[in-house]
């Protein structure tokens, strides 16, 4: 299929090229022929006028009153055309006074026209009795007291034959030329497109196992080279995400295997030897708890997949980030109370704290961030929540959550958002949950056009900053409202 398509492109190019060339050549032939015809006709006309003047000098009435042509004229022919000259002379009443022998007694142009030859030469093409055509001019001439009408012409037969021959040659040459041009064009197109073929062949060989292969690019500056580079970038991105996916799958398997291992061990140990009911109860309870952990990890993975599949713009609504945060805080309130954490809020009166995003996903994100902050915050510490706006080319609502916990070591500012990240710090790691909460938050925020990061400038604790796009007139994001 691909091969025929590719050939079709080449064929199409050639056909177009040949068609255009054919039209241009045809137009050229017509132009040349018409120009030639006009030029030669003009020449004949001029010759005939000269000829009439010459003939007028040679005409005389003999003693019997018959019109004669001085015969010595033929001994000094001025041009070879003179031999072919057709001539007829009439008086004004239409009586034929003289006919050249070349006419073989035929009439040159039939009866006299009114005022013929008086003001103009009345140049015209006439048909003779034998079917041939002649280009004729007429002229009134006065001599020896009498007025005669001279008609003088040349047969066009020879000229027309030449023209036809010429046309014939051109018409034979045209298809030959087109054929040659077509083959040449086809060959050139094939040559020009051959890198494409090579690229296609190379691309066909690339599968998931050799995504690191790249297309060879002969000339990076031409169109095909450009395409090749684009394809190579595409492959690079594919490879990156594929590697990421592989790592993620491995991590996920590991993350699931750990609770499964403890689940299995607990079961096996409980079944070893006779035990009391309480021991079995304890073991089964522990197994169920671990199974819940496994399930939660799976739910987290599914949420990640769902957030990843989120199309920008779908399921977005306008909502107040302040309100959403309040909602999340009220859910987590018992934890805050239990640890006697003081929540300080600033800027929640911000009137424009409206953001445009998928509310459900953002809620899960904020829930994870806040839960994290509360988890790591020491008892009776302060949790600072601030709402501000942030403007670049677009308006954002910025939410920052600053806890007074152990903080994040500078080398881990980025890594904390990795899936299944566990801190190198044992104490922090022991408090960590499934390890995907923050990566879910990051994915959700970024998929909704926002940014999330930990402020590297804080000296105490950790300050998580979330920016989500706010609807403003400029971006027209209000359409989601």
């Amino acid at each position: 299929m691909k091969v025929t398509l590719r050939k079709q492109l080449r064929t199409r190019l050639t056909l177009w090229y040949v068609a255009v060339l054919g039209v241009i050549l045809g137009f050229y032939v017509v132009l040349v022929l018409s120009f030639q015809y006009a030029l030669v006709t003009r020449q004949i006309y001029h010759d005939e006028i000269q000829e009439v003047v010459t003939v007028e000098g040679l005409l005389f009435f003999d003693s019997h009153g018959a019109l004669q042509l001085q015969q010595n004229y033929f001994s000094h022919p001025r041009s070879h055309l003179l031999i072919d000259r057709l001539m007829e002379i009439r008086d004004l009443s239409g009586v034929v006074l003289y006919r050249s022998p070349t006419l073989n007694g035929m009439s040159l142009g039939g009866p006299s026209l009114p005022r013929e030859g008086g003001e103009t030469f009345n140049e015209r093409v006439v048909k003779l009795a034998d079917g041939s055509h002649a280009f004729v001019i007429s002229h009134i001439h006065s001599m020896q007291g009498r007025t005669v009408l001279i008609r003088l012409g040349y047969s066009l037969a020879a000229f027309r034959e030449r023209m036809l021959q010429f046309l014939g040659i051109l018409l034979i040459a045209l298809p030959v030329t087109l054929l040659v041009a077509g083959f040449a064009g086809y060959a050139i197109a094939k040559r020009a497109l051959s890198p494409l073929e090579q690229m296609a062949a190379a691309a066909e060989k690339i599968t998931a196992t050799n995504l690191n292969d790249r297309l060879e690019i002969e000339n990076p500056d031409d169109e095909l080279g450009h395409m090749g580079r684009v394809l190579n970038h595409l492959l690079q991105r594919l490879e990156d995400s594929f590697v990421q996916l592989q790592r993620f799958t491995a991590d996920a398997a590991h993350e699931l295997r750990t609770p499964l291992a403890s689940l299995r061990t607990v079961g096996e140990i409980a079944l070893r030897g006779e035990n009391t009911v309480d021991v079995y109860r304890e073991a089964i309870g522990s197994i169920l708890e671990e199974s819940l952990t496994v399930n939660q990890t799976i739910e987290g993975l599914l949420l990640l997949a769902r957030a990843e599949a989120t199309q920008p713009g779908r399921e977005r609504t306008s909502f107040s980030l302040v309100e959403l945060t309040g909602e999340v805080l009220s859910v987590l309130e018992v934890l805050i109370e239990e640890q006697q954490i003081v929540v300080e809020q600033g800027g929640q009166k911000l009137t424009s704290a409206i953001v445009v995003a998928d509310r459900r996903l953002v809620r899960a994100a904020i829930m994870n961030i806040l839960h994290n902050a509360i988890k790591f915050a020491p008892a009776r510490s302060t949790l600072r929540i601030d709402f501000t706006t942030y403007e670049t080319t677009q308006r954002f609502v910025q939410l920052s959550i600053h806890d007074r916990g152990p903080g994040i070591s500078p080398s881990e500012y980025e890594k904390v958002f990795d899936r299944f990240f566990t801190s190198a710090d044992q104490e922090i790691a022991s408090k960590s949950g499934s390890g995907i909460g923050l990566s879910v938050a990051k994915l959700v925020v970024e998929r909704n056009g926002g940014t999330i990061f930990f402020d590297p400038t804080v000296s105490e604790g950790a300050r998580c900053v979330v920016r989500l796009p706010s609807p403003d007139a400029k971006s027209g994001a209000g359409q989601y409202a």
Partner: protein
Amino acid sequence: MPTVQAQLRVLIIEDDKKLANALVAGIEAEGYNVGHAPTAEEGFFQLHSQQPDLLLLDLTLPHRNGLDILRQIRREGIDVRVLILTSHNNVEDRVEGLNAGADDYLGKPFSFPELIARIEALLRRVLPSTASSSLKIGDLILNTRERTASRRGVSFELTAREFDVLLYLAESRGRTVSREMLAKDVWKESSRFTPLDNVIDVQIARLRKKVDDPFEVKLLRTIRGLGFSLREPEA
């Protein structure tokens, strides 16, 4: 245990043998008459021959999609309540299942107490709920109208959430309530990926401090791996 007039029949169409066997045993223990069919064809046969009151339907069956079966059941106008059990557990699947004529939908893995609660809710749906404004568990009295609670005449200060949790546990009449049920029904959290377990545990601990700590008889119990129950201890 339900003191049912005639034994209600439950049919399980589920191809996973292990899960099916566990479900049969578990639901029978709750006092129902339980049948099991591993395939859609077998399920249809039993559906016609046994005329169960409730069908537990797995959606991913060999040969035939569970939704097809459900649609056929509704087309044929068979009078049976249908509870879908499936691991396809996103919102769209749920909507599709309910549109096809399911009465309820439970995602795998589910907690067994929740399954039983749903089954009972479905089979009792027609009965009017108790009009009484007070609930009594042992010496604990809940006034649902004034939203107050007391034990032996001593009333406690409860937050709105605490009262909701206590009421939910009381309405479950001694049955075990899982954390997922609390999250869904009391906290109204639809997403399962919310770190609510901590919140629930802390909430229960605080509730226990008020309801149980001052008294000798403990009502609020934690069943490890399952959840919580509110009932009088058996002698």
